[in-house]
């Protein structure tokens, strides 16, 4: 969630009263934003010899792009508090009737096909407004625009440039200009090299760097306005004295393009000489049918069902009561003339988050107050509780192992490739493990195919513990399985490890015998013979196993026969000393691991 820092005194002035931190926190809570921090009592940085004034740091839900700046927060809270009504944003054409025009060249489809924009006339900046203007662009770039990949904004002093403007895509070498706040003219290639290590801009270069053509906006005198999504030209830069602002926005995503345009112009149109007026511009884009006048600030007109809203909220409000509540959330709503169950709702241009009547319903509930809604335990429909069968089976083994004196551990499911294969003297055949594409560390390269790495790492981290250490885990591993929709499957395993001064081989063998007995599985070879002739459907036996994970001659496969069908479900043995060395273990270790699924 984006966090917006606003000047505390200025916000409370806008809201018409002082709030204590607790009071303001409460207001935020009810509205659904979150007061992260009030810096009044913190050490605040000193900028230019002046201590920064107290700030409120407010977390905004990720879909409320209309609250990413001081102006938007103040406006929405004022409307919520009933102090203001939603502004009537007006598109006003220039007195000469000639709109600024932006002509789109077809080559732009190769790199960044969409463009939009607007003009703010007779604008009055001051320092705070200027900072908010820059900060909003930054927040939009970071959030909705996904680090400028989807949308990017350029703003210009219109009095330094002259339309009609063109949006083109040209080879990098052919674009020459002085970038913002630089003195040196450079071409597109030089610019990439120049900003390669730039802390701020470096991370955006990849968006266009390798493209044969770069997007660029020119004025009628071939002055470069901007090289989206990287940087504007220095020529048209905004200053505190700028009176007329030209906003151009380029994008890969048409929907987000217009959202950004609407947010930019509505938030700042209050600072024009006639507040809430915006001058539209003309986009000429014949090749893709995008010729139009922008922005479109008309509300989205829709209807919502009174019964649906009441039913979801558990309320019994009249249509006009619902409409009144919706006013607090910036809507303009009235009972429908055609149906008693409908209200006509104007969704303001800035509320891009409203997609369905469920969003309108939620706003009714917020305006009413979540914590004021009538509370009731939902009707009990006759549902039947039941555990997942494999979990029930796992719990039986977990409890048996703990009763037998073993301690349960809970290592991670992701591990390194070496831990899962090489360190256990196992080979990766390429068809076994699920591998991760983008782990941040080597610790997380594969989804484990065995519980052993986790057990051995747990012992490694617990060498201070008295020996013997006896631990177990019952949990899932995962395997590649190309026959399935998700190309992989989980498998529930049981595993245990002994760490002590002697090998503990018979001890883990004994644990295996114990859990098999608890699963009503009879041992069918060895001295004990067939102890319980009544148990005929489930049996197990072990066979010596030659496996590099284990010490030669001291390992066995576990075979089970269930309903006449034979399975090898796992193995146990003394771990090979080379395995111990990899896991930095000084004493012998014996382990047992088997697949539980056959016992389902």
């Amino acid at each position, binding site marked *: 969630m984006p966090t917006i820092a606003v000047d505390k005194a200025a916000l409370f002035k806008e809201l018409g009263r002082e709030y204590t931190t607790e009071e303001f926190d409460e207001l935020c809570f009810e*509205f*659904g934003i*979150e007061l992260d921090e009030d810096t009044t009592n913190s050490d605040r940085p000193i900028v230019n010899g002046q201590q920064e004034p107290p700030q409120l740091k407010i977390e905004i*839900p*990720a*879909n409320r792009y209309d609250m990413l700046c001081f102006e938007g927060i103040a406006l929405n809270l004022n409307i919520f508090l009933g102090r203001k009504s939603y502004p009537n944003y007006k598109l006003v054409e220039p007195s000469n009737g000639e709109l600024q025009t932006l002509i789109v060249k077809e080559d732009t489809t190769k790199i960044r096909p969409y463009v939009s924009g607007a003009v703010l006339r007779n604008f009055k900046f001051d320092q705070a407004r200027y900072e908010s203007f820059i900060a909003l662009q930054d927040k939009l770039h970071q959030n909705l625009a*996904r680090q400028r990949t989807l949308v990017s904004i350029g703003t210009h002093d219109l009095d330094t440039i002259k339309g009609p403007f063109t949006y083109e895509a040209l080879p990098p070498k052919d674009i020459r200009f002085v970038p913002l706040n630089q003195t040196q003219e450079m071409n597109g290639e030089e610019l990439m090299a120049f900003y390669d290590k730039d802390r701020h801009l470096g991370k955006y270069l990849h968006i266009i760097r390798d493209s044969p053509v770069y997007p660029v906006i020119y004025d009628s005198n071939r002055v470069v306005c901007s090289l989206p999504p990287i940087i504007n030209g220095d020529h048209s830069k905004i200053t505190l004295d700028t009176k007329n602002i030209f906003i151009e926005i380029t994008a890969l995503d048409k*929907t987000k393009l217009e959202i950004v345009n609407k947010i930019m112009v509505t938030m700042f149109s209050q600072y024009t000489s006639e507040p809430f007026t915006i001058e539209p511009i003309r986009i000429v884009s014949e090749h893709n049918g995008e010729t139009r006048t922008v922005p479109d600030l008309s509300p989205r007109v829709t209807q919502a069902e009174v019964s649906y809203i009441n039913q*979801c909220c*558990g309320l019994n409000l009249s249509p006009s009561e619902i409409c009144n509540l919706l006013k607090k959330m910036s809507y303009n709503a009235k009972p429908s003339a055609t149906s008693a169950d409908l209200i006509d709702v104007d969704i303001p241009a800035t509320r891009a*988050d409203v*997609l*369905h009547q*469920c969003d309108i*319903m*939620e706003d009714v*509930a*917020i305006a009413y107050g979540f914590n004021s*809604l009538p*509370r009731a*335990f*939902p009707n009990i*429909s*006759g*549902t*039947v509780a039941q*555990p*997942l069968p*494999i979990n029930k089976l796992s*719990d039986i083994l977990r*409890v048996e*192992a*703990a009763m037998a*004196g073993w*301690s*349960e*551990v*809970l290592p*991670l*499911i*992701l591990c390194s490739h070496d831990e899962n294969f090489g360190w256990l003297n196992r080979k990766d055949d390429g068809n076994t*493990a*699920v591998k*991760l*594409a*983008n782990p941040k*560390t080597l610790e997380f390269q594969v*989804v484990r195919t065995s519980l052993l790495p986790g057990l051995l790492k*747990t012992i490694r*981290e*617990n060498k201070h513990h008295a020996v013997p*250490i*006896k631990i177990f885990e019952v949990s*899932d591993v*995962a395997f590649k399985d190309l026959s*399935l929709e*998700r*190309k992989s499957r*989980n498998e529930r395993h049981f595993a245990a490890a002994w760490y002590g001064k002697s090998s503990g081989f018979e001890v883990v063998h004994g644990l295996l015998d114990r859990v098999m007995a608890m699963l009503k599985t009879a041992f069918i070879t060895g001295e004990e013979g067939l102890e319980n002739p009544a148990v005929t459907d489930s049996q197990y036996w072990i066979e010596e196993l030659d496996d590099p994970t284990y010490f030669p001659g001291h390992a066995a496969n576990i075979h089970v026969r269930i309903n006449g069908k034979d399975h090898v479900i796992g193995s146990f043995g003394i771990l090979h000393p080379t395995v111990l060395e990899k896991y930095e273990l000084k004493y012998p270790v014996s382990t047992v691991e088997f697949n539980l*699924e056959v016992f389902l």
Partner: protein
Amino acid sequence: MASDMTTPILDALSASEAAILSSEAFPSTPSLSIKSALDRLASRSMVEYETIDKEVVVLTDEGEEIATNGSHEAKVFEAVVAALDGLKIGDLPGIVGKDNAKIGQGNAFKRGWIKKDKDVLRATTHSIVDETRELLLTVKRTQALDDQKAVTDLKRRKLIALQKVISFKISKGPKFAREFVKEETDLTAEMLANGSWKTAQLKPYNFKAKGALTPSGALHPLNKVRQEFRNIFFEMGFEEMPTNRFVETGFWNFDALFVPQQHPARDLQDTFYISDPAKADPPREDPLDDPHRLKSAQPASSKATTEKALDYKGYWDNVRQVHESGKYGSIGYRYPWSADESLRLVLRTHTTSVSTYVLHKLAANPRPARYFSIDRVFRNEAVDATHLAEFHQVEGVIADFGLTLGGLIGFMEVFFAKMGIHQLRFKPAYNPYTEPSMEIFGYHEGLGKWVEIGNSGMFRPEMLEPMGLPKDMRVYGWGLSLERPTMIKYGVSNIRELLGHKVDLNFVETNPAVRLEKD
């Protein structure tokens, strides 16, 4: 170890009417031996005793020598007297020794016993009193000296030393007897067999010590909390969902939940993508022999007794449309939806992917249902004290007709009361797949503040209707991590002390039983 003093003490007591003093009765026995005998006798109430701490004055080796043979100055005086015609100074060390000569000569002058006459020493008196020796003899006799100035002086001269002496005043106890009966350490099978238990005296048990350590296995603390949550769900009629599926597709993990394909949660920064295997198939029916296929114990409702066949292709298309152009009364996100993105494999970032899968199954026969799961989820996060790349998500789902938001709040009050959280409040929040969305805050008595304890909401129609669930069926969903409430409840500050291989086994083995409603 000195010999056993129990018998001598009992003998001495029986010979005496009054209490006895160990310093008098057993002056040469070390006090430690006496004390151990007394403790054994006292624990059986055979004797009572008081400890007497006393400081005594004793002679050093040099002091002992002076007490026996006289002081240095007395020796010098005697030598001078013995030489009838005066003693040459140079001869003195030869007669009394170097040390005596050096110290004794000065002291004898100071006391006016001798005088110097050219190079000879002559006595000035016939008889002297050797005070130093007298004082030391008193010390030797009484182990004390009243004159504090003398004590200081003699201590400085290293002739005496102060010593702490422990002695005991011993008297008969209520169970006094002449004989100390030999005690058995434990009741044995042999004693039962030969009947000696009737006369045997058992060594008294030490009720102040802990018993013998009992060897024990243990369940993991986090799993104990998990079991408490599972029990709460079972108590409330919930069926456990098949979350034994770590790998999901973009479709099930995101698209089906109406999470747009450009949503930040789908970033490489947040989600683990799978490189091998490379790509999933579009959604389809599970294999018939899959042992984990849902087998609900729930009887089919009277409303619809027959299961509809699920249309997976239709579901896929519905999801595409609701994102791309809108459907079911939603305008959608209006972006070009990519099938490839939907078929990317991911490690599930939440178990809500499984809830989605189960709700889609429910569309075959829509009826009231309650589902839950508690299982591992994966986030590609930087690891720190409160974040691991893996944690457990607790998730609950209720599907029914006519559910209200107040019902969700009312349900949460009962659910959280079962784990001892009685004050809740709800904050509007944003979540791509629930609307309304509510963050749940609980008042934490210990911390004295409101703590976020979970997220909840009603699933969006854009998520439910593409599945084929009826429009009037509403579905609550809520979730919380298993680790966070556990950390708050048990004061664990680092998640790595709770999950993973770095957890201390001693913590696992000594963690008490979990009783969420009480702790």
